[in-house]
């Protein structure tokens, strides 16, 4: 580590005084090239000497450390992720350190712009990742031609490609959002059938009400992200009621004039669909008040007790219950099971809405490349898959790793006519993490739809 002399500091302080008194001369600003050759980060005591005496011959990267910075901090999730690296670490000698922080958005912005990026960052939203594209390494120069195409379907690669052709991310853990959860025991007891069309879904909901049951539970409270539960509904309904082109123009328009407005009939119709379910006081458990105030991670609980019958949530939903129900089982004979959120208009087939983590690389060192390459293999998330929480976007996944329930979800993904990513994660932050969410809360609160949609359109940034 470089040691700066006191003299250097004195000079710096003097120059700062000059800068402060004399004007804006940025005397103290370091040169703008910290990305290259920047040591990972000063916080970790980077071992100058190998930490352990390992036979260097077997481990080409012995003594090196690679830091992955991510958004999730749950102990079980982190452990499963780290476990995936154990064989890799033994083989290469690279110490892979995962650091998670719930203030991920703030930290990644500060660190990349402050010249202190992590080696690799895992983004929950590709839109966020693209904001830091300038600092990220172009992965098409890292992997040989055709390698990524061999590991992923093209649509995953497209979602991490910048307009100028640079590939800045690779996908690692995927989730499927187009699912409706229910309790098989409750369904069996009441003799309900799994609906396969929207009409059947609505008929089933009415039947449940007639039977004195409450069909839906859709709690949305998620702190400063409240609203995302509802936007997932809109996106799923969009994929079922209009063309893929419209979905793409709605989320990531190729040109400003292509943009499908929120106020357009296609989008408005999707809002009305969700309104027909969630604004119906008879349909939702605890009424609209509970939808707005209950915490989203309690979604599954009333299903288990029969207080509510169905909940539309992603493949990760059972994971929220493990804290309170460690023995929870998922499957046709388990405590909970899922069915595919049914199509609405047959012309648009069976689409699937997905989400996932996408990883960008900021420090180009040989060992970082190795870690990133490992992340492009399904093996890296084998423990996460086996824990039953994630689906692999990789082509080299071993279907035996999935349990029965998750294999079904993987198959839904594989059999989909169209796969699209969570739209709010793709839209500009002002909309995707701003007015779209808050507009959803306003709508559930009973406000008029047209002004809400116009307001969202108005908040779409000009560039």
């Amino acid at each position, binding site marked *: *580590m470089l040691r700066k002399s*006191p003299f250097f500091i*004195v000079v710096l302080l003097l120059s700062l005084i000059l800068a402060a008194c004399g004007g804006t001369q940025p005397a103290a600003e370091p040169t703008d090239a910290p990305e290259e050759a920047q040591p990972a980060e000063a916080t970790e005591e980077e071992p100058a000497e190998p930490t352990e005496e390992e036979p260097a011959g077997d481990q080409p990267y012995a003594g090196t450390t690679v830091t992955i910075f991510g958004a999730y901090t749950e102990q079980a999730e982190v452990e499963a992720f780290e476990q995936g690296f154990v064989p890799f670490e033994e083989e290469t000698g690279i110490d892979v350190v995962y650091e998670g922080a719930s203030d991920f958005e703030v930290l990644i912005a*500060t660190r990349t712009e402050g010249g202190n990026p992590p080696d690799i960052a895992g983004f929950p939203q590709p839109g966020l990742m693209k904001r830091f594209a300038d600092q990220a390494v172009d992965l098409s120069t890292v992997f040989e031609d055709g390698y990524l195409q061999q590991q992923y379907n093209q649509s995953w690669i497209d979602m991490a490609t910048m307009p100028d052709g640079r590939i800045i991310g690779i996908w690692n853990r995927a989730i499927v959002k187009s699912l409706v959860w229910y309790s098989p025991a409750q369904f069996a007891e009441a003799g309900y059938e799994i609906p396969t069309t929207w009409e059947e879904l609505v008929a089933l909901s009415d039947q449940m009400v007639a039977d004195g049951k409450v069909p839906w539970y859709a709690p949305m409270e998620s702190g400063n992200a409240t609203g995302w539960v509802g936007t997932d509904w809109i996106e799923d309904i969009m994929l079922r009621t209009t063309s893929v082109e419209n979905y793409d123009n709605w989320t990531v328009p190729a040109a400003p004039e292509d943009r499908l407005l929120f106020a357009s009939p296609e989008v408005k119709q999707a809002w009305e669909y969700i309104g027909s379910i969630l604004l119906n006081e008879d349909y939702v458990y605890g009424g609209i*008040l*509970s939808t707005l105030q209950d915490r989203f991670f309690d979604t599954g609980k009333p299903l288990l007790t029969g207080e509510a019958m169905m909940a539309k949530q992603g493949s990760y939903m059972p994971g929220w219950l493990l804290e309170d129900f460690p023995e929870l089982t998922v499957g046709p004979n388990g405590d909970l099971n899922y069915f595919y959120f049914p199509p609405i208009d047959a012309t648009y087939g069976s689409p699937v809405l997905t989400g996932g983590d996408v990883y960008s690389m900021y420090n180009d060192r040989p060992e970082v490349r190795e870690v990133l390459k490992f992340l492009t293999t399904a093996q890296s998330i084998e423990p996460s898959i086996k824990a039953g929480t994630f689906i692999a976007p990789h082509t080299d996944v071993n279907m035996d790793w999935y349990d029965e329930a998750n294999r079904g979800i993987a198959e839904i993904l594989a059999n989909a006519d169209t796969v699209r990513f969570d739209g709010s994660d793709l839209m500009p932050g002002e909309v995707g993490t*701003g007015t779209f969410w*808050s507009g959803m809360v306003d709508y559930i609160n009973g406000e008029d739809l047209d002004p809400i949609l116009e307001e969202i359109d108005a908040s779409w940034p000009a560039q």
Partner: protein
Amino acid sequence: MQQQLQQPEKGSFLSWFTTGVGRVIVALIVPIITFAILWQSFVFMRDTEAPKLLIALVALVVGVVGVWALYIGTNFFIEQLPGRVRDALRPYLFVGPAMVILGVFLIYPAIGTIYLSFFDARSESFIGVQNYAFAFVDSAMLIALRNNLLWIILVTGFTVSVGLLVAVLVDRLSQWEEAAAKSLIFMPMAISAVGASVIWSFMYFAKPITQPQIGTLNAIITGFGGEPVLFLLDKAINNFALIAIQIWLLTGFCMVILSSAVKGVPDELLEAARIDGANEFQVFFRILVPSIMPTILTVSTTVFIIVLKTFDIVYVMTNGRRDTEVVANRMFNELFRFGNSGHASALAVVLLLAVLPIIYWNLRSLREQRS
């Protein structure tokens, strides 16, 4: 202040020249050596693998002794200088370090912020005052500005007056009663923003009328036969609900500072007024309040600025939904979630502009005090 002139000049010009230069050089070495020692200990703390407790100990010694050593060393140097230079330099020994640190950590970034406020979202091209147009025209921003005004008036008004009330009242209680009361009012200050959000989400929680309430306030309201109130969702009251949290948090701050001022008011002064026949309200408004006016100004200014910068309560509780946006929260979102550094910078500058009247007020009172 004329105290600098009290120091008699030592020796003639010539003798200063022969012995003085050497003395100055020697004196200059003192602060430099102090600095060098300090820096070495910093480097030690930065790079060491030593046990945490040892580092903590070194840290404490350096933090406390080190800063003082620097001042004493520099003072020693300045005192060796010839009279006029010494007198001119002395004040800067006192303000210099503060201004240097402020320059590095706040002025330099603030200048950068002002500069960036004229650039686009990605700080790439100059766009004039467009960001300011956004700040004052955008409909969401207009709501934020309105809310900020509400926050400033209500929070500053309530915290300062309740803080003053408590400070005056507890002064009349026994010592242990005073300590207990002050501690209870002060307690919220010790709770982090996230902790406060948990507390208040349980104060405000509303269950449907058919279910038992778990929120304290709605339990009281429904207990008296009322309908549950949606404190955070109802646009008519949600801003007040958030403002109440800030009042709850900040009153302790005002109380602590105002209390020390109240205790500084001499009893003779109050007593004299009473003998002249003033009643308690007159004593309070004509004697007590004017004598602690400088402190009231200080506290009001501080609360005003804290409120301008308030963002965590809003960010955690509503994130600006349902018309509860405030400027600082929007700035945070623009900066980190929306990635629009132009908007964020302009909003930061708006906050800077908002304090200008307060600065004027402070400078005026400063001049009055001096004359």
